[in-house]
């Protein structure tokens, strides 16, 4: 207790000093006229700003001086922006925007570079230049984040992307042609053997058409298991497969770990198989899918499914390996367990022994025991759903139900045996105790406290909170609405990511920081200890191709620059270094097809050069050591002033040249 008080005081003093410095800058004219000595007096400044002791504690816990590194990095999806954000904790500083499904000009992604990655995500030749990123998943080793790869799903078009955490850039986009949307992904198996992409809205498979009247017979659900090859850093399409599911609108999934390794769990919310049609007098989806008393937790044996796939049990649908539902049933790959109606979340506890399903429309979380599930499967069940999938009786698999409040959605875990569930309708985060051995048996299954958040909280992220050994310390509430939290910038408001201190046991929690996110809706996030990340400071060698993560044999070294021509094909070979491009005059002919390679021969950290050509829609970010090749057709004659778009040096403005195309 004494040491706790002491450390609080230290934090308090630190925070006050910080606030004093800030106030010195902000209100010094005013203070200097009223109280000359007050300008540097932190207590006066705190009083002037109306800061409470709790505010100063929050400042002390989050303020990170210049040059001091954060403890954690949070990878948050950027929703319909099609990107991923990297945010430092506890400072809540935005560290990096990672372009994934959407072109982005700062990184030059899709404006001459990265096009080969974006093109992988086109479907049947259709350009798709955005995504709805939902659930980022860090690669894991033995159920722990290993800091090597990050995966992210695109809900809108059912795609998955691979990001290499050596350079924080997207390397691959894949699409399962049998299906066209996802939600319950991505999640990885405990050693990243598979990246799991759960589907969402029921569809006819393979992009076919079927009338909604034939929903039950012609529509399906789907879950895709993408095989990841660490050596190549790519998803192995040929070793990946999917499993057909009933059209129940599968939602959030999670991988089993520890005792439940080898199993996948997904909740669903349309066991009613409602098809909407409000305009025809039918119940709208929002009512139709919530009409029944129960939905189904899906329990999938991925090891058995892999064996069925490898033994030829999959069929080809639109060029993809799919295990049909009847095959899944026949091979005991899939079981269902009733859930309270229209739930959200299927979150596996750190030891892998329980699966927590949030009630959404029911004030409880339902906790399923993996042991009970196994026992019930072993004992056998006669009950099935309409498709013949075995249904495990709720009373035989349920461990506990904990009443938390209105709108329980998503649950994460800490190192003290607590679970945290977002309460969307209550706009609060519930801390509750896991009343089992290894967690907090002394407290039982019970609600401990609720922390109000601002507002409409969706997912939660805790430090390493969905691994086999959560860290505790920090929780982030990903709030959908910010309403009155920030200065108004018009009718479109930012999301509000709130950092919460969960380090103390019992009912003490505190909101430490509000981070407005203006890019899009950060749907889900994972928080990794910063020391697990080991990103390159510059590319390892000059001439590096980030797409292959190796030296490009076509890279340009100083002294080898030049322009060569073969008929109408012109090859421009250029280097960039502070503060000039070589060559500076590039003269070609109208009608030429131009292949242009630029190598940034810099080795200094942060010595990035941009490269843009007006009119031709080209803008690159060429990081130290990087080599980029782009192509375009010189359709328009004239003089085009190309220049470096990344402020690189004192002579940055002079870093330009002329592209000359005579008529």
């Amino acid at each position: 207790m004494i040491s706790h008080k002491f450390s609080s005081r230290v934090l308090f003093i630190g925070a006050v000093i910080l606030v004093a410095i800030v106030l010195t800058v902000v209100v010094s004219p005013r203070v200097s006229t009223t109280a000359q000595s007050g300008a540097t007096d932190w207590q006066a400044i705190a009083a002037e700003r109306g800061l409470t002791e709790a505010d100063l504690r929050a400042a002390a816990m989050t303020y990170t001086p210049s040059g001091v590194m954060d403890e954690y990095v949070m990878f948050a999806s950027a929703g319909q922006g099609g990107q991923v954000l990297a945010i430092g904790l506890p400072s809540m500083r935005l560290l990096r925007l990672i372009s994934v499904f959407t072109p982005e000009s700062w990184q030059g992604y899709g404006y001459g570079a990265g096009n080969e990655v974006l093109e992988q995500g086109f479907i049947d030749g259709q350009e798709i230049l955005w995504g709805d990123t939902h659930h980022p998943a860090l690669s894991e080793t033995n159920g722990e984040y290993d800091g090597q790869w990050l995966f992210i799903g695109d809900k809108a078009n059912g795609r998955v992307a691979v990001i290499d955490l050596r350079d924080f850039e997207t390397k691959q986009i894949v699409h399962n042609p049998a299906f066209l949307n996802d939600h319950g992904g991505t999640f990885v198996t405990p050693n990243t053997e598979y990246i799991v992409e759960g589907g969402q809205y029921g569809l006819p498979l393979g992009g076919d058409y079927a009338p909604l009247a034939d929903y039950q017979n012609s529509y399906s659900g789907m879950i895709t298991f993408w095989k990841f090859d660490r050596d190549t850093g790519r998803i192995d399409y040929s070793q990946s497969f999917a499993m057909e599911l009933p059209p129940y609108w599968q939602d959030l999934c999670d991988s089993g770990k520890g005792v439940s390794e080898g199993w996948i769990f997904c909740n669903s919310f349309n066991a009613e198989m409602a098809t909407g049609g409000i305009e025809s007098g039918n119940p709208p989806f929002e009512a139709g899918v919530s009409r029944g008393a129960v939905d189904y937790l899906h329990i999938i044996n991925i090891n058995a499914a892999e064996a069925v796939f490898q033994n030829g049990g999959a069929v080809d649908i639109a060029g993809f390996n799919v295990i049909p539902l009847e095959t899944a049933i026949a091979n005991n790959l899939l079981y269902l367990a009733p859930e309270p109606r229209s739930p959200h979340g299927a979150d596996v506890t750190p030891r892998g022994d329980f699966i927590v399903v949030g009630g959404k429309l029911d004030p409880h979380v339902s906790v399923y025991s993996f042991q009970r599930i196994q026992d019930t499967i072993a004992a056998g069940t006669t009950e099935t759903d309409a498709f013949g999938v075995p249904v495990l009786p709720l009373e035989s698999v349920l461990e506990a139900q904990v009443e938390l409040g209105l709108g329980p959605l998503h649950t994460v875990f800490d190192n003290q045996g607590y679970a945290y569930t977002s309460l969307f309708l209550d706009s609060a985060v519930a801390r509750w105790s896991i009343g089992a051995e290894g967690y907090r048996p002394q407290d039982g299954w019970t609600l401990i406290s609720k922390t109000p958040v601002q507002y409409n909280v969706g997912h939660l992220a805790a430090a390493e909170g969905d691994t086999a050994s959560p860290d505790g310390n920090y929780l982030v509430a990903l709030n959908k609405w910010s309403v009155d939290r920030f200065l108004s910038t018009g009718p479109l408001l930012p999301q509000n990511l709130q950092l919460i201190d969960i380090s103390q046991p019992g009912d003490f929690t505190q909101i430490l920081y509000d981070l407005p996110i203006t890019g899009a809706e950060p749907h889900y996030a994972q928080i990794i200890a910063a020391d697990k990340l080991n990103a390159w400071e510059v590319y390892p060698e000059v001439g590096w191709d980030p797409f292959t993560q190796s030296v490009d044999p076509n890279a340009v070294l100083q002294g080898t620059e030049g322009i060569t021509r073969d008929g109408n094909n012109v090859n421009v070979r250029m280097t960039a270094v502070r503060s000039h491009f070589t060559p500076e005059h590039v003269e070609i002919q109208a009608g030429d097809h131009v292949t242009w390679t630029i190598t940034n021969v810099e080795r200094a950290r942060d010595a990035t050069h941009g490269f843009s050509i007006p009119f031709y829609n080209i803008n690159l970010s060429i990081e130290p050591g990087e080599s980029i090749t782009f192509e375009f057709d010189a359709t328009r004659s004239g003089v085009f002033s190309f220049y470096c778009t990344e402020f690189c040096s004192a002579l940055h403005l002079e870093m330009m040249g002329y592209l000359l195309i005579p008529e």
Partner: protein
Amino acid sequence: MTTKAISPTDGKAAGNTKQAGLRRWLKWLPSLTFVVAAALLLISISQPYWGLVLQAPQYPGGLQMRVFVNYMTGDEDPRLDEVREIDGLNHYIGMKSLYEAAKFERSIAIPVVILMIGLLLIAAGLQRRWTWVLTIPALTFPFVFLADLAFWMTNYGQNLDPYAPLSSAIQPFTPPILGEGVIGQFSTVAYVDTGWYIIFAGAVLIAIGLAIKLIGKLRTERG
């Protein structure tokens, strides 16, 4: 003299033996110092002779150049080629590329060091009146190295391209080969490094060897 008083007969013999031993020792000690100096020369090849550290706000870890007898390099971190970086910065003030400096000296450095080692070994093994001359290259090597370095530093500092971007801000200057300096926003510290101390230690050993030789010669002439 005192031994004589204690033991007049045996003492004299013992004294003679001792003096003979001392003479032998004095005769071969210079050779030993030459051999050790030769070994030090060989070892010095693996060590930097001279270094330069540049500090500026935008290089929080500083930039370092280390000059070996036959090449230049940055610090141990291979990610940043710091000589190249310094070279890149130097072009703003119109300084010539460092890779062009002392090219001839660097190209002959290893053969010359081996030659000096050979001469030292000959001087050690061949006890003639004139062989001390063979040690002069190794004896003067540390100072010749610094003199050559000073020549190139002055050459580079004084011959800046008058059309360089920063020519109006940075006038021709003489960079110090030892100690602190300032160039633009960079503060520099130049210092002799391990390799130079090793060849300097070799030179001191050679000087000691030659001194012993000289003393021995004077004694012989007197006796």
